[in-house]
């Protein structure tokens, strides 16, 4: 484990282990005495006492961690901030002054908007704070932590302290709510996960670094939240949660002095309760890339600062537009607190790549490197690096084998295929969620970019067919449907189509197994007039033929046949597949006719899928039609 948080369960286990060791000491001493070696183990008594004391301390700490209860002044103390003025309630005056400054920078007719406005506002905030003493800054944070914690331009440690106060408040409120929830309540698990996450936010984390003598040391440090708002956004899944998804940004490292600053942007289903899973990638990045200790010159911001969609609305770009604006403003806003010469990179994953593209369209600037991972596309009209209009930024992309999101291109062309992009290797990463996997080539490449070792980058040039047989056909199928269905309906259909297409990716379904379920989705969304069953079947038959050709070619080539033989085998396979499907599909499309035929020949072929249904119709061709040209060595089956 790389990110070690002070986990109460772990502390309890450690305490138990210490008690056990202490309990063994009397026996060891007795044995030593028997062997007349008691003098040589005289230190055991002291060791037993130390173990006992330490175990008690650990248990006490575990209790604290289980139910953190920290005053606002304690929160200031966690970041070594003075609390004298805060205790006197001296923050109210500055808070009122700060609000006046913000009012002067509010968006309105004729006012500056967007990223530039965010930077100007942050500059004004920074200027105001620079006129306050640390004690006054701390008092202001305690007076209005919600405002101060999320305000660009505020010194980062003041934000960290303010957000810690807000986290405590959210923890108090939500843990009280959890107590009243029955364990079989559908909201219980998500709420508990969220309360556990908030508790961990309050717990220190273990940081490994090198001391001035170059020795590796381990220290506990408070977690640093640059953004925290438990009530932000929508309730992603109201059946299993009562709270909004929230927004969070955590910093690993010394943000204001770092020479390299990384912004990480996550994708769908990003919620407060799952934040630590996302944050782990940030810890791994900054640590493993520097001899397994944290690089003092690097700061990573795991920015979950937008209302991410669930799978069901992931084809809707609306949240990406809002998120992109927020990201562009955040980037500009924090710039006033960074070193002037700090290099800033963005690593975006999944829907987060679309958010980043929207940020670019909202005026995102001053980014040195951007990496798109597992992208569903960057939106309409963005088909090359040139379309991003950021000539000073270096763009990279990754697409791991079997990454469903990249294959389906739900929001446009996959940036991994862009002209002008540098596509990076992802060896040992698979599917959609392993780009930050330790020791994978994707992680290695991310670290090479982060730490400036770009000469060591490794690259990828695989085609879809080389990555996963059927990926190309899946991409074509999605493109076919998107071309036929209005965008707003396509967005809504995403929830229903995703599991069907994922069945194909996982190998649980063949191409024609998709006909029925897709037709069902089209029917549900009243799109059967836009995509008729005949059209859908024709498309799937063509895609099946293409896939069959490739699969057979590959199989034959892999056992050593020459390429021309493999192509012939592929051709014969495509012919067989399309011929098999063609009459079947034709008849399947004519539902009533199929039903009649099936009734007639049900005893010859039977099965439970549309494909089997289709083949029954082939059987019908043999057994019923018995037209000229057919040679049947036995009579019609008895009925």
């Amino acid at each position, binding site marked *: 484990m790389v990110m070690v948080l002070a986990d109460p369960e772990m502390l309890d286990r450690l305490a138990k282990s210490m008690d056990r060791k202490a309990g063994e000491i009397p026996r060891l001493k007795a044995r030593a005495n028997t062997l007349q070696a008691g003098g040589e183990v005289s230190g055991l008594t002291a060791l037993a006492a130390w173990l006992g004391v330490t175990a008690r301390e650990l248990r006490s700490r575990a209790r604290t961690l289980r139910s953190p209860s920290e005053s606002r002044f304690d929160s200031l103390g966690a970041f070594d901030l003075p609390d004298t003025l805060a205790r006197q309630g001296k923050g109210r005056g500055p808070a009122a002054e700060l609000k006046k400054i913000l009012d002067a920078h509010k968006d309105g007719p004729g006012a500056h908007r967007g990223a530039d406005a965010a930077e100007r506002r942050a500059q004004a905030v920074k200027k105001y704070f620079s006129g306050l003493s640390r004690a006054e800054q701390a008092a202001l944070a305690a007076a209005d932590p919600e405002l101060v914690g999320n305000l660009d331009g505020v010194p980062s440690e003041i934000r960290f302290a303010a957000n810690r106060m807000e986290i405590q408040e959210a923890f108090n409120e939500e843990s009280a709510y959890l107590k009243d929830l029955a364990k079989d309540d559908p909201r219980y698990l998500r709420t508990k996960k969220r309360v556990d996450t908030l508790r961990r936010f309050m717990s220190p984390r273990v940081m490994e670094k090198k001391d001035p003598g170059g020795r590796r040391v381990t220290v506990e440090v408070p977690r640093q939240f640059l953004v925290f708002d438990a009530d932000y956004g929508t309730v992603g899944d109201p059946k299993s949660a009562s709270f909004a998804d929230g927004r969070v940004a955590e910093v690993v490292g010394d943000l204001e002095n770092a020479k390299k600053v990384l912004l990480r942007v996550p994708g769908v289903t990003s919620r407060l309760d799952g934040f630590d899973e996302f944050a782990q990638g940030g810890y791994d990045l900054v640590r493993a890339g520097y001899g397994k200790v944290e690089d003092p010159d690097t700061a990573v911001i795991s920015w979950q600062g937008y209302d991410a969609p669930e799978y069901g609305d992931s084809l809707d770009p609306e949240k990406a537009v809002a998120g992109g604006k927020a990201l562009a403003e955040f980037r500009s806003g924090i710039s006033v607190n960074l070193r002037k010469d700090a290099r800033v990179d963005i690593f975006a994953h999944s829907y987060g790549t679309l958010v980043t593209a929207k940020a670019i369209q909202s005026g995102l600037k001053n980014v040195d490197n951007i990496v798109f991972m597992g992208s569903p596309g960057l939106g309409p009209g963005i088909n090359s690096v040139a379309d991003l209009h950021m000539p000073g930024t270096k763009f990279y992309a990754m697409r791991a084998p079997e990454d469903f999101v990249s294959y389906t291109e739900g929001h446009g062309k996959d940036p991994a295929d862009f002209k002008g992009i540098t596509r990076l290797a992802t060896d040992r990463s698979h599917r959609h969620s392993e780009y930050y996997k330790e020791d994978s080539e994707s992680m290695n490449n991310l670290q090479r970019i982060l730490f400036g070792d770009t000469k060591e980058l490794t690259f990828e040039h695989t085609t879809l067919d080389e990555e996963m*047989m*059927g990926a190309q*056909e899946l991409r074509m199928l999605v493109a076919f449907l998107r071309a036929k269905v209005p965008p707003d309906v396509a967005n809504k259909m995403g929830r229903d189509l995703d599991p069907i297409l994922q069945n194909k990716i996982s*190998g*649980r*379904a*063949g*191409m*024609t*197994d998709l006909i029925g379920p897709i037709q069902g989705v089209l029917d549900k969304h009243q799109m059967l007039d836009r995509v008729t069953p005949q059209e859908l079947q024709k498309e799937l038959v063509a895609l*099946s033929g293409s*896939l*069959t050709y490739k*699969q*057979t070619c590959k*199989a*034959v080539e892999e*056992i050593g*046949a*020459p390429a021309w*033989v493999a192509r*012939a*085998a592929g*051709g*014969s*396979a*495509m*012919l*067989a*597949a399309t*011929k*098999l*499907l063609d009459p079947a599909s034709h008849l399947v499309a004519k539902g009533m006719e199929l039903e009649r035929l099936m009734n007639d020949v049900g005893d*010859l*072929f*039977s*099965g439970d*899928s549309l*494909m*089997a249904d289709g*083949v029954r119709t*082939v*059987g019908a*061709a*043999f*057994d019923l039609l018995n037209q*000229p*040209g*057919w*040679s*049947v*060595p*036995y009579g019609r*089956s008895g009925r």
Partner: protein
Amino acid sequence: MTGAAADGKPVEGEPSHELSGEVRAVLRSLFPGGTVLDVPSGISRESVALTAYDEAEGRTTVEITGDLARQLRGCGWAVADGSADARNTGLYAARRDVGGGVFGVEAPAVTFHGIPVRGQNRGDRPTPPFRRTDTSTR
């Protein structure tokens, strides 16, 4: 030849199901010195696919198609071969209580795609990665 164990993994020496075995027998007769192998089928979970080829084969596509039809009939298959020509070289064929499908021909290869009758160990077929199941070379 390949069969399937209880865990679904292919086992050398026994057919995965009857349709596969029947098709394989026909293809081996058609290409006595050639190669027969199971290939993955992207069509459907139920479908069976086998490919046979012989790179030393001298027959044309139409000739192979004709020989295949005769071979099938000789083995008790029902065959629809009325339209076999150089551009349309697929044979619909079915065998009672076993299954049916289409043989596609493109010299020097033949591929079968079809569906077994229910009860023919559906789902026990070897799944990709596909394997060579019956190979001999001249």
